[in-house]
């Protein structure tokens, strides 16, 4: 297992990592390197990668516990059972054609949004917070489904990612008929 915190600083993720004391690599991604390589647009996102380094389960939404089940509607048990069966070699892998069919690949606007994020992130670190906020906002316009950008940059824009601004964003998104989490259709 490899866990990656998509956060503005190591200190944001530190309390969780120190409490969990993981034996696996527990990494920090402040520049959205992983999101860029894997087209990750929200958290949690999980993937399965086999011994040969092949993606055998593309981006999916899965939780380790049922802590947020009442909010997300996603139970942990389904993924955990499938994961155990895969690790033990009891379940056949998803056929490659099916994995490809289930993938969501990045568009030009997704990558333009990530470039805007990248510039904003650099400006933020340079102390140019107002300029940074312009680029974070532009990134969110280009990729309104990308909550690693829209929600993940809130702490860099003086907004509470658990607060009113987030609830309004999520409410507007849902009202327009869009799901906040997109688990794989199986």
């Amino acid at each position, binding site marked *: 297992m490899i866990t990656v*915190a998509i956060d503005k600083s190591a200190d*944001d993720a530190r309390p969780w990592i120190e409490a969990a004391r993981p034996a696996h690599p527990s*990494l920090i991604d402040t520049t959205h390197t992983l999101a860029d390589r894997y087209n990750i647009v929200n958290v949690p996102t999980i993937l399965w990668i086999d011994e040969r380094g092949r993606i055998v389960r593309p981006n999916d939404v899965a939780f380790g516990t049922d802590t947020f089940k009442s909010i997300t509607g996603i139970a942990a048990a389904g993924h955990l059972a499938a994961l155990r069966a*895969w690790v033990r070699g009891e379940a056949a892998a998803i056929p490659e054609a099916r994995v490809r069919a289930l993938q969501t690949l990045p568009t030009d606007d997704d990558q333009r949004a990530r470039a805007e994020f990248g510039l904003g992130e650099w400006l933020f670190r340079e102390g140019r917070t107002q300029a940074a906020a312009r680029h974070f906002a532009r990134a969110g316009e280009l990729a309104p489904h990308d909550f690693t950008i829209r929600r993940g940059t809130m702490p860099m824009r003086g907004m509470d990612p658990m607060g009113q601004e987030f609830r309004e964003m999520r409410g507007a998104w849902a009202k327009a008929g869009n799901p906040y989490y997109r688990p794989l259709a199986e």
Partner: protein
Amino acid sequence: MSERTFTIIDDGRVAVLGAREGAEALKRAEAEGRPVAVDPEEGAAYLGAPARARAAALASLEAPDFTLPDLDGRLHSLSEHRGKKVLLVAYASW
């Protein structure tokens, strides 16, 4: 007064260029089909990765490698885990 500089952030590398050099670097990146974010007032630009390249890499199903630090700053790469099954989990404090 010194000539205005232009900062280019390219794949994590930061280069401070002269204004003309910076404009040329942007033109080159755009010609290569790369997404470019520019802030003329700040004199800075970020060169991203083209959707075509990222999409092709994912569609190949060869898991893209990455290298990231842990809390102690020690770097880890996905490729170090070859030969083992990997559950990759992206999460956040938000």
